[in-house]
């Protein structure tokens, strides 16, 4: 089976090359190829039409090999979901756009509620305009939610500069509170601070991020911004231990024995909320975002713009992420003081030998969904 697939790949490549060589001008062969391709995609979509329930949909897409994810440490919730429905833990590597979903090569595509889902649904600049024709499968509803955007630093810097850490948390969470109460203004602030996306998409993102900050995995309302929910953190750690596969045996052993106390400390956030901290030991600090500047990180931009950081005696530099920038590495080697990452990424980094500490949990529920065409 494997061999024949490879032979097929080689044959196709050879055929493509020869047809490209021989038919520089004649277009007949290329129309042939496109017509066979469209007929094959039509047959596969009709087989999926019968399935309506989410479970059937997941099983069908997994059997077709058409479940998409970006990989690179974003895939663990998808693994947990596939395992739940008895499917092999495999996915198609999805690009950072939704073209694979659009052209049908991926039938269940990963999307963040605040980003890709908006692009798929809406028809503003960069959107695909599917509107109501898109269905979603929510990781929170499926019981496989893992917590995402947090706030972290190194254990060493938390011990050395506890007041800086507490002051930073206090001002940042004030920023998050304001941003969630005024998402439209927050979107504007982010857009003006050097946004990577259009102002329309920024406004959509702010409204969705607000939901992630104010609702937990069970759908209950949360009013304490940045609170580390014990049960949700434990579920994240348990799923991480199950689905993060590390080839380095030393790291794998460490992962197996990690407890919540190895990855987070709630005392900094608690003191920050009570505003019981002194003058910061270190006043010039920086925060590394997980991605490009966008409303996903609106709390920090708002805190900066509204002068909340200045009020607690901090001068904050917000550092853009994106592409292959590793926020865990940047914080661990001291390039920046604070970082935003997913809890699962912090767990694998600590298993690999880093000494990182989560000090706040900004998103209270998973923002990952699988999208499909209705």
């Amino acid at each position: 089976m494997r061999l024949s697939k490879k032979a097929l790949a080689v044959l196709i490549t050879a055929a493509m090359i020869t047809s490209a060589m021989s038919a520089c001008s004649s277009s007949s062969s290329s129309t042939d190829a496109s017509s066979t391709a469209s007929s094959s995609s039509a047959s596969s979509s009709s087989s999926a039409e019968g399935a309506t329930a989410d479970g059937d949909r997941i099983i069908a897409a997994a059997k077709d090999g058409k479940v998409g994810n970006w990989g690179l440490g974003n895939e663990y919730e998808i693994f947990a979901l596939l395992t739940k429905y008895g499917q092999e833990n495999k996915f198609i590597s999805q690009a950072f756009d939704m073209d694979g979903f659009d052209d049908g090569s991926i039938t269940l595509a990963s999307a963040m509620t605040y980003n890709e889902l908006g692009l798929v649904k809406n028809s503003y600049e960069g959107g695909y305009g599917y509107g109501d024709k898109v269905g979603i499968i929510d990781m929170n509803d499926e019981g496989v939610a893992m917590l995402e955007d947090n706030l972290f630093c190194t254990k060493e810097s938390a011990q050395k500069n506890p007041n800086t850490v507490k002051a930073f948390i206090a001002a940042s969470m004030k920023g998050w509170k304001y941003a969630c109460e005024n998402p439209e203004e927050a979107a504007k602030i982010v857009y003006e601070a050097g946004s990577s996306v259009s102002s329309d998409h920024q406004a959509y993102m702010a409204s969705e991020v607000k939901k992630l900050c104010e609702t937990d995995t069970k759908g209950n309302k949360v009013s304490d911004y940045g609170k580390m929910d014990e049960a949700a953190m434990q579920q994240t750690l348990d799923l991480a231990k199950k689905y993060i596969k590390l080839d380095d045996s030393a790291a794998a052993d460490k992962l197996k024995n990690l407890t919540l106390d190895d990855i987070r400390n709630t005392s900094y956030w608690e003191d920050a909320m009570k505003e019981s901290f002194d003058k910061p030991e270190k006043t010039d600090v920086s925060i590394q975002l997980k991605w490009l500047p966008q409303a996903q990180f609106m709390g920090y931009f708002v805190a900066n713009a509204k002068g909340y950081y200045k009020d607690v005696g901090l001068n904050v530099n917000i550092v853009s992420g994106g592409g292959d920038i590793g926020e865990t590495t940047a914080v661990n080697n001291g390039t920046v003081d604070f970082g935003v990452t997913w809890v699962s990424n912090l767990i694998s980094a600590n298993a690999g030998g880093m000494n990182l500490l989560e000090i706040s949990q900004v998103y209270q529920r998973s923002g990952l969904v699988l999208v499909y065409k209705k």
Partner: protein
Amino acid sequence: MSAKMNSKRRSAVQSVLLPVAFGGVLITAWQTGLLHKLLNTDEYVLPYPTRILTIISENTDKIMENVWASLEVALLGLLFGSVIGYLIAVFAASFRKLGSGGLTIVSSFNAIPIVALAPVIINWTKDVSPQADVRSMVAKIVIVTIVCMASMSVNAYRGLTELPAFSQDLMKTYGAGKLTEFRKLRLPNSIPYIFTALRVSVPVSIISALVSEYFAEYVIGVGRQIRENILIAQYSTAWAYILVACVIGIAMYAILIAAEAIVLKKRR
């Protein structure tokens, strides 16, 4: 006689012993942590050689699976690219006016960065198969083919056209036809140039195979493993795959040099 032996021995010392000694010093400095002090880094970002070797020995099956996936792509792309590149060169040498223009276009493929080429080709080949692993392999082979094609066509063209004047005169004297001239003169004359091209395209085929894996839909290959592991902060494992990638590159190059020595020796 003895002086000749001495100089031979000296050159052997220079070409083999010195690099080996340098490598030994480097690895010792690395293992003892001296290198970390010099480069101002920690054993986390740059793990010790023993740690890297342990990971390789513990994961041989998985590593070999990824090695074969990368090697298949590199070798098939190299094969297709070299054959097509040579045919282009033959065409260009036969129809000089038309061919030189085409050759310029083909050689300009060399200037396209692989990171720009890869996503385009992967999108372009999405229709070739409903199975992601098949179409990913096709996409990766096409990328390597395009990259390898350029260096072969340019070098082979030189081999087919830059002929010794006396040989051409001889061919004319015998009244040889175009086909005979090609078979007896141009083809043999181009063989050293083929190896010149391969010296460029063998390492490039590996590099482009590894980079194309970054963008491929189907997750497999040494390059992809390097990226995955760096992003989840598993530097020791990433280094294990980096080391494996180096070994593949060096081994392929060594095989090429050996083949070149054998083939060209016969001609002398």
